């Protein structure tokens, strides 16, 4: 029997029972659509996070106080040495690969202009911070590059802070009070929104020494290091750790590469996507049982037809092939419809949440289609074998 004849015969018999065929198609379509839509969502979340990291700059090393290793003695290793401005200076001086070094202090303070007042995140850093965090100036200047230890009373405002405190006014050149300190506004950042959980628009950046006095800190929150080239990343990381080991007499800092952080997040979200996809795939099994049901009904309804086929010289194997093909056509058609429906759902989702780069990963599409086909054939096997094993005489005589 030719393949084209086989497909024609199988599709004609499916077309004979439109409602039944349609219902089992819907079952399979929902399963595939669920896999496509849910994995697209997971993949979207993963890419969103990865893009967030990319937006704060590549080739980044982050020095965090304390070691992530667990030690056996309580108190030891849990209270690491602080990292200081001097450490930061030493880094910049002694490690040539460190192109930009931005020490960071973080706190919350009230920021006021006249009667207007709001809480804002106060970031203490240096001129390098602008490039390290990939920020841009809307107006004025960023922090001047000058002696690290010179704490001038100047501030750069985030977009929202500037608009709230100076409605309809030019903030640059004016004075704000941060905590008890008066500072001159020298610039305003371009609107950026939330980056890595920090709202750039709700931030005030001041020189690091100023922030330490203002917030009463003696140590740094962390140090961002931008490395000249990606190839130097690992070597620089090792140098940084060695430098701190020398200065603190022990290895008491953790240096995160951005890659590692991204990879971790990406891995977690990838696993999540896989898990969600697998759960959705269970519905494919349910759809397969639906197909089995339809095929069993079809076989019992068409018992006389099977008997006739056998009488005119159609072999058992051909009968098996016909019914398997019908099951496979059903599931493949359901799979394609589900793919279209899932794709549509993703488009709608992206329209509602434009920030989410949701699109189903290729593996999920392949897996959903492959699985639907496989499930159809697998669950079609029982009915098809039942059809093939019918006794020709009894099948012909059935009512």
């Amino acid at each position: 029997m030719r393949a084209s004849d086989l497909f024609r015969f199988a599709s004609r018999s499916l077309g004979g029972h439109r409602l039944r065929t349609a219902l089992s198609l819907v079952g399979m379509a929902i399963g595939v659509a669920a896999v496509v839509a849910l994995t697209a969502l997971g993949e979207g979340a993963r890419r969103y996070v990865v893009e967030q990291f990319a937006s704060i700059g590549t080739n980044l090393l982050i020095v965090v106080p304390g070691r992530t290793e667990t030690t056996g003695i309580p108190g030891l290793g849990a209270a690491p040495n602080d990292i200081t401005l001097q450490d930061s200076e030493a880094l910049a001086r002694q490690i040539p690969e460190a192109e930009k070094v931005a020490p960071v202090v973080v706190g919350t303070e009230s920021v006021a202009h006249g009667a207007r007042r709001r809480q804002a995140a106060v970031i203490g850093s240096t001129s390098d911070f602008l490039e390290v965090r990939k920020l841009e100036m809307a107006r004025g200047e960023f922090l001047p590059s000058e002696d690290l230890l010179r704490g001038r009373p100047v501030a750069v405002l985030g977009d929202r802070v500037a608009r709230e405190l100076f409605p309809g006014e030019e903030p640059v050149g004016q004075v704000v009070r941060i905590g008890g300190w008066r500072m001159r506004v020298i610039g305003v950042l371009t609107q950026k929104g939330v980056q890595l959980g920090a709202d750039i628009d709700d931030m005030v950046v001041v020189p690091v020494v100023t922030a330490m006095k203002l917030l009463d800190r003696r140590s740094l929150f962390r140090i961002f290091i931008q490395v000249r080239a990606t190839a130097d990343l690992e070597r620089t990381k090792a140098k940084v750790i060695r430098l701190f080991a020398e200065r603190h007499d022990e290895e008491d800092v953790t240096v995160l590469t951005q890659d590692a952080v991204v990879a971790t997040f990406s891995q977690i979200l990838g696993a999540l996507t896989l898990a969600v996809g697998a759960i959705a795939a269970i519905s494919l099994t349910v759809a397969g049982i639906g197909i089995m049901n339809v095929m069993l009904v079809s076989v019992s309804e068409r018992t006389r037809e099977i008997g006739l086929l056998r009488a005119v010289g159609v072999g058992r194997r051909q009968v098996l092939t016909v019914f398997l093909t019908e099951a496979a056509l059903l599931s493949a058609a359901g799979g394609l419809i589900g793919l279209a429906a899932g794709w549509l759902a993703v488009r709608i989702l992206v329209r509602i949440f434009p920030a989410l780069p949701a699109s189903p990963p290729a593996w999920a599409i392949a897996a959903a289609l492959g699985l639907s086909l496989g499930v159809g054939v697998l669950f079609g096997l029982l009915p098809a074998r039942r059809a093939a094993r019918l006794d020709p005489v009894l099948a012909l005589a059935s009512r």
Partner: protein
Amino acid sequence: MIRLEGISRTYQLGGQPVHALVDIHEEIRTGEHVAIMGPSGSGKSTLLYIIGCMDRPDSGSYWLDGREVGRLGDEELTAVRRDLIGFVFQSFHLVPRLTAAENVELPMVFAAVPRAERRERVARALASVGLADRADHRPDQLSGGERQRVALARAMVMGPRLLLADEPTGNLDTTSGRQILDLLERRNDEGMTLVVVTHDPTVAKRADRVIVLVDGHVVRRLPGSEVAGTADLFAADPHPPAPSPVTGRGGG
């Protein structure tokens, strides 16, 4: 063409063995027109299905065209049916969703006959039963007689040597029934062996030879021209070929 030697077939029905055929010895020559008669339950359909390679005897041997086919496996029997045998049934057995032409085409589709040749043979087969203009009608748009003619066209389309008909006129009015018998006989005149199962004496009368079965035994053999009513035909043979009491009577 056909030689049956000691054919027996026993069914299990509700745990009870039913002796459908008991020790049948029979020979049918090529080109012969034979009617198998008997009341319902006499085993005549079982015999037809064994001759048609749809069923296998429990014992005895069956020679078809010089080949012992009674012991063949399912696959080989299927091939024998495909290449040598055409069936016509009482209830037509057309596939309801297919047109007349597609129904006729069906055996060739599964036998992988090229499409162009199929179209030509379908047209010829339908024309030979006078239904060329009904090719695109589905069975529910055809009369009973037309349906049986489509079924006959389907039985003929693979060019069989043996045509088997199981009560071919059972569901038809007299006129359509006669038409079908005429068509069957025309095939027989062309040299095809024809075996018809019937309980209708008017059908049996037209055969060269009639074999009468009662309770699985051949109780009589007579020329078709000698067939009268069924009552005396199915009555116990004064000299039964097998020692089995025969109680069956009449029609059914």
